[in-house]
């Protein structure tokens, strides 16, 4: 948006106060002469228009040295005496494309030189008063806003109000409703009949119509508990979760592709959908659901899936990453900021009913939310990162890993014993030999300590003879820094997930059952067998070099550089080509380099992911950052050719001690293969058996399940982005919840991302929002309109609650009753309010309460697209009740063309699965769902529209799916026994939970006769004609009663 500063409501007049200021430094006359002659004219002519008395672009004034030193939005404009770190100089030098001043064209070289010299001189400026002025900033009083808006106030425990009609108001909730009705001179409508009630309950609770049998049983059940029993039955139905999960998917913008130009897939997204279904079916307390969404990966004791024992809680965190994503962000930092913006937007609307993202560019225009609040939240997300978590069904992988580890330990012991037996006869103490060897052949270890020093790293480290003083021809010159060599015995801040990498790098005497002894200090994903999968992630670092070199061995395993959270490199190489390497050298260690296009990411925050996600493996020996060209390839780490047994035994000792080189390990492996260790004594044979044992165990280990999830990254606090621009960092904001929720003095996050603390603080009893927002959503889904009609916005721009006391009452009940969604629903549907008829029985009340705000009757509601489709499948008898699993591919019509049209055509009938199991491709959304107002998965959408467009009628009249289901239903009815009227009643019971009325029967009969003559059928044939009955069924689909719930 444009320049809103000028239109700020409470802008102060710019009033100039002249302050006699003394310059902070004395300046010699000659210097001042230089300034007046060479500098001031340049500034005045080129800069003051935008950075002077009249305008202060970017908050910057350049007409006094004090103001220059204070600077603007981007901080000080000069650093006295230091032109190279002065932004003013950076700007006029035009070297930074984002900061080029003056914008009309570069200054003359001599002008630039003069300004640089002036800064170098300490920026002399004559003694002049400093012009000051109050700028036109809107005052933002967070506390006043918090206090003046209802939503921030604590949840009260209001007593149910007195009412007159105590007979009707059997529950407290009814009393709240009735009190308002009575105050508005309205009375509640009569109770709906049982047929209406069962249909209402079915659609509200499980999203499907009741079967004829269920209807008749309910109608016939004279017991006063019949209704309650029905409610409990439906709450216990597995379809309950399918119904309610879809509503939360609207909130978390559930999608399975990233949209934008390419619409790449969001892998494993469906597990989040299944998580929601199970969570609602299991009635997981809603505060736990929130906690799992925010930090399900960090819970000390996560919930586990009852069938396979996998971590259930972590699945919730997938919601963070269902944002849109673009494959080629030119500004990768801003791209991440935009994704985080969407994450904050969705999280805050969904769980807090607040539009915190509106405070990204400026303090919120209306609500008690500051830009600092926004960036306080942003820090939690920048301290986190995306992962595809490894889940281990029934712990089988873990079990296999442990068994293999035990066998490996046996093997390592065996091999070690062999070496010691030989060394006893040796005169030299092993330590001294080791010290020599290590000093001579491990320059890499020294480099790590030396940092950026220009050094020579011998590439051919074979054996103990190589020295730094006498480098081999294939040496690698690295003017850079060793980022990591895994020599500390730990992963040194790296995080391993899955089972491939184990708990630490290879250490002294590590034996790889697949290949033999390996050197210490390898991040190795194959030691338990190549089939194990896992990912090892580095801490976050700032990219400062052009190239990354990785010495590694292995097959089919990638190392990726993840820049500012950008994850689509797997699909598109356009801008991120150089950010990935893949192993392909087998046992041989080679240098793999990321060389292309990294320079443009300098200054970006990144981390490395070593990703073994198949039956490949990788062993990483060292990772270097440099500005050099590709290192020489192919000769490092080749096997040594030493032949005498002493040398081999020395290598064995070094292996045991942890100082073996790549060459040592290769030598030992070669000897082992030939069974020609100096003291073999059956070692090779026995090791081979142990290897086999490992392979056998590994073969029985299942592949891991993967799930989209969040995980920890290195913690970082975010600065405010001035005007939302990540390139203009302001004050750093410690990670915290908004002040209006958590107060101004929050305990700093001590370790990790802090998302667990985030969840704790948002769920603190003092925060009224989560319970109010959730209770309002549940109410809305049962009564058609929230007590707050804007369920995602409880802020000033939302609408206030129609029944504020009732809202607090149910929020309180909800919280006190363990945040149980099912019991909340039960409480609401047991009211007489819920059981009222929706018929417009009293015209006078319709006039008085036209929008039915006071609930003088139940609201008539149109079904959602999903429920309409599910109802068709149900009545047609085609519904496939299979739950869970990967989504059914989208059926593509001829109207769904364009870029990246999916190659796979999905079935027209969606395999007759419930609509929640149909794929959600952002660029290819189901036309039927769109027409019936399924929201676009962009942001939180708590209240669906109910539009009325011709496309809806055209779909129900002509769409191939609708016709197909009408046919199936018609065929079913045609094949049944019974008279015309009996069949008509059966249809009506299926569709509307009631038999047809007499007039309806007569009219339908007339239609059947019309169609009979149209098709030339006899009366007898007509009764069993699928075509004819399909016509009837098709008409029933088009009836308003089919798509509305009374």
């Amino acid at each position, binding site marked *: *948006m*444009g320049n809103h500063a000028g239109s700020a409501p409470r802008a102060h007049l710019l009033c100039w106060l002249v302050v006699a200021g003394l310059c902070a430094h004395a300046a010699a006359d000659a210097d001042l002469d230089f300034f007046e002659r060479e500098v001031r004219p340049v500034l005045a002519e080129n800069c003051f*228009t935008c950075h002077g008395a009249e305008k202060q672009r970017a908050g910057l004034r350049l007409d006094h040295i004090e103001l220059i030193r204070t600077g603007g939005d981007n901080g000080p404009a000069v650093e006295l005496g230091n032109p190279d770190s002065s932004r003013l100089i950076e700007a006029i030098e035009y070297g930074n*494309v984002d900061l080029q001043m003056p*914008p*009309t*064209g570069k200054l003359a070289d001599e002008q630039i030189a003069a300004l640089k010299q002036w800064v170098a001189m300490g920026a002399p400026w004559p003694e002049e008063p400093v012009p000051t002025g109050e700028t036109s900033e809107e005052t933002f009083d967070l506390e006043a806003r918090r206090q003046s808006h209802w939503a921030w106030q604590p949840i009260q425990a209001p007593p149910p109000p007195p009412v007159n009609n105590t007979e009707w108001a059997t529950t407290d909730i009814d009393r709240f409703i009735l009190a308002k009705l009575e105050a508005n001179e309205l009375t509640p409508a009569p109770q709906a009949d049982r047929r209406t009630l069962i249909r209402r309950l079915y659609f509200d609770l499980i999203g499907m119509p009741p079967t004829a049998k269920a209807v008749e049983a309910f109608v016939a059940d004279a017991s006063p508990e019949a209704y309650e029993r029905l409610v409990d039955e439906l709450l216990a139905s597995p379809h309950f979760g399918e119904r309610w999960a879809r509503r939360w998917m609207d909130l978390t913008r559930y999608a399975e592709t990233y949209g934008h130009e390419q619409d790449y897939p969001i892998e494993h997204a469906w597990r989040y959908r299944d998580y929601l279904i199970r969570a609602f079916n299991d009635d997981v307390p809603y505060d736990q659901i929130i906690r799992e969404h925010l930090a399900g990966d960090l819970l000390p004791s996560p919930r586990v899936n009852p069938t396979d024992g996998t971590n259930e809680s972590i699945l919730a965190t997938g919601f963070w990453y269902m944002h849109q994503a673009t494959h080629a962000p030119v500004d990768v930092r801003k791209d991440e900021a935009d994704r985080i*913006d*969407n994450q904050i*937007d969705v999280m805050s*609307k969904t769980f807090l009913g607040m*539009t915190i*993202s*509106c405070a990204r560019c400026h303090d919120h*225009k209306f609500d008690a939310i500051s830009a600092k609040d926004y960036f306080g939240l942003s820090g939690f997300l920048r301290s986190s990162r995306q992962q595809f978590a490894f889940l281990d069904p029934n712990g089988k992988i873990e079990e296999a890993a442990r068994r293999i580890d035990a066998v490996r330990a046996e093997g390592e012991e065996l091999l070690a014993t062999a070496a010691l037996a030989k060394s006893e006869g040796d005169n030299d103490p092993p330590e001294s030999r080791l010290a020599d060897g290590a000093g001579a052949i491990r320059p890499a270890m020294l480099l790590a300590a030396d940092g950026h020093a220009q050094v020579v790293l011998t590439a051919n480290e074979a054996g103990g003879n190589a020295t730094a003083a006498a480098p081999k021809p294939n040496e690698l010159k690295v003017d850079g820094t060793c980022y990591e060599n895994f020599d500390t015995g730990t992963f040194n801040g790296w995080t391993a997930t899955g089972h491939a990498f184990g708990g630490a790098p290879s250490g002294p005497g590590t034996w790889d059952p697949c290949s033999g002894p390996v050197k210490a200090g390898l991040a190795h994903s194959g030691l338990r067998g190549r089939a194990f999968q896992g990912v090892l992630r580095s801490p976050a670092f700032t990219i400062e070099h052009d190239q990354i070199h990785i010495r590694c061995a292995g097959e089919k395993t990638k190392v990726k550089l993840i820049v500012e959270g950008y994850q689509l490199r797997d699909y598109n190489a356009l801008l991120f080509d150089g950010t990935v390497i893949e192993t392909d050298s087998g046992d041989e260690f080679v240098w793999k380099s990321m060389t292309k296009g990294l320079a443009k990411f300098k200054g970006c925050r990144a981390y490395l992911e070593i990703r073994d996600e198949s039956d490949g493996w990788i062993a990483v020996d060292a990772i270097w950052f440099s500005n050099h060209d590709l290192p020489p390839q192919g000769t490092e780490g080749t096997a040594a050719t030493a032949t005498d047994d002493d040398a081999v035994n020395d290598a064995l000792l070094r292996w045991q001690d942890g100082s073996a080189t790549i060459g040592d390990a290769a030598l030992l492996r070669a000897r082992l293969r030939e069974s020609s260790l100096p003291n073999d004594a059956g070692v090779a044979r026995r090791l081979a058996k142990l290897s086999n044992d490992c392979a056998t165990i590994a073969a029985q280990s299942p592949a891991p399940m993967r799930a989209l999830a969040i995980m920890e990254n290195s913690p970082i606090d975010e600065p405010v982005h001035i005007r939302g621009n990540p390139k203009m960092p302001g004050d750093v904001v410690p990670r915290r919840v908004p002040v209006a929720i958590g107060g101004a003095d929050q305990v700093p996050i001590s370790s990790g991302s802090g998302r667990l603390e985030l969840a704790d603080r948002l769920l603190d009893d003092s925060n009224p929002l989560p319970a109010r927002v959730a209770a309002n959503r549940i109410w809305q889904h049962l009564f058609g309109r929230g007590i707050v009609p804007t369920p*995602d*916005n409880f802020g000033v*721009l939302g609408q206030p609650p129609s029944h504020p006391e009732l809202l607090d009452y149910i929020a309180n009940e909800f919280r006190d009753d363990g945040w149980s969604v099912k019991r909340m629903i039960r409480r609401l549907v047991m009211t007489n309010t819920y059981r009222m008829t*929706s*018929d*417009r029985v009293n015209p006078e009340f319709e006039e008085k309460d*036209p*929008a039915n705000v006071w609930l003088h009757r139940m609201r*008539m509601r*149109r079904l959602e697209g999903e429920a309409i489709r599910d109802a068709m499948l149900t009545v047609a008898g085609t519904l496939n009740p299979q739950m869970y699993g990967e989504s059914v591919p989208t059926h593509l019509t001829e*109207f769904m063309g364009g870029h990246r049209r999916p190659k796979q055509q999905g079935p027209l009938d969606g395999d007759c699965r419930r609509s929640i199991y149909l794929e959600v491709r952002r660029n290819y959304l189901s*036309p039927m769902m769109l027409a019936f107002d399924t929201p676009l998965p962009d*942001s939180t*959408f708590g*209240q669906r529209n*109910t*539009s*009325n*467009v*011709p*496309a*809806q*009628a*055209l*779909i129900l*009249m*002509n*769409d191939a799916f609708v016709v197909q289901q009408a046919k199936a239903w018609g065929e079913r009815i045609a094949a049944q026994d019974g008279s015309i009227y009996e069949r008509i009643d059966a249809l009506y019971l299926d569709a509307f939970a009631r038999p047809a*009325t007499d*007039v*309806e029967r007569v*009219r*339908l009969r007339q*239609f059947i006769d019309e169609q009979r003559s*149209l098709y030339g059928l006899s009366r007898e044939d007509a009764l069993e004609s699928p075509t004819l009955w399909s*016509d009837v069924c*098709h*008409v029933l689909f*088009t*009836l*308003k*009663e089919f*798509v*509305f719930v*009374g």
Partner: protein
Amino acid sequence: MAHCNNYRQCSLSRREMLRQCANGFGAVALSALLADKAFGASTAADGQNLLAPHFSPKAKNVIFLYMDGGVAQMDSFEPKPRLTKEDGKPFGMEMEPTQFDNNGATLGSPWEFHQYGESGLPASGLYPHVGRCIDDLCIVRSMVSQFNEHNQANYFLHTGLGLSGRPSIGAWVTYGLGSENQNLPGFVVLDSGLIPSGGADNFGSGFLPQSYQASFFRADQPALANVNPYEPAPGAQRNKLALMNDLDAMALAQAGAHDAMESAIANYELAFRMQTAVPELTGLDGETDATKKLYGMDADYEPTRIYGRQCLVARRLIERGVRFIEITCPRIDGVDRWDAHGDLRRNHSLNAKATDQPIAGLLMDLKARGLLDETLVLWAGEFGRTPFAQGRDGRDHNPHGFTIWMAGGGVKRGFAYGATDEYGYKAVENRVEIHDLHATMLHLLGFDHTQLTFRYSGRDMRLTDVHGNVIYDLIV
């Protein structure tokens, strides 16, 4: 991102919505349906207007030729010799912030201008066909917008507010005037291939009844999904729908007259009629080769053919009494709308190639058929472009001054209004705000823009909010 406008109103469905139905059949629809008389009728006789116009309208319909992405004013209808003279030199004025912040040197227009017609008004080499219609154009060279970004500027141009969620001008016009056609929606977007930035929210009904939102017809056949009846035998569907109406009526008798259900019933009648009306409309039945040729439908260039077809469909919609038609731009390979951030020459050439002849054809055809007087044609993008280069050879967004034009519908002919500075950068003479454009358009349609209101959230809402002045200088 437009999420700051997170207050989305859920739909209202009131009884009066049906009565005031944009599609022209209103409250009579239900009874007509029940009597099974009006089915398939296509007369325009009982078209109802919600509001009588405030004064005698000059225009009855609008065709909005939306120029997606923003056309460069100095390359189309406002020649700037100084720009040409200073081509390649540092830009001579202070530059406002730009979308891409990659400002280069002054960029003269690559196109020559020619004077056309009796008015002698200039048009560039981009628009030779439109140039020959210049005596019918009323060119505004001093348009300004408030937004530098496509989505916001589009919402602003279409709805009067730079956020999503407000009724589109097409919805307002249809709300005000109703429709004269029972078989087609009152507000139609002819989708030539590109949906504008901001998507369907540019064409929504906002807080107005849902029935005022636009329907989209594509250029391919069928123009609309599911518009072809499923039933092979003509009578079969008719029987079904008659049954549907009777059964619906019986159910409604029980439940009472719920607005949403009644609206849904009305929807079926429209849908039923659209099954005939849309294919007839878009099939171009009865159009001669000469007419098609006039619109460029014989062109070698596919985007020209597509856009020509939609322009011709627009004329047919006008003839059928549809109030408000917007035509979106065709998709052009390798070029992103008129949004010439780079390679201005190629971008604008191809876009002009696609639209020039069809637009001229439309103007000439409307005129020849006597329809231009009652049809207001608007040619406009969401903003203009910068006189200085973006990078080497592009132009960035420029809301500070740009050109739009109108034709027919009571605007002056062969007339140019306002001006930008010598560089074509900022409007300096007779600035016209988007609100002013809206006010003027409503005026031409017979409405006082301050009186065309809809009560919502306790306020009488207007297309022009609290802004807008009718620019009487533009009106005959």
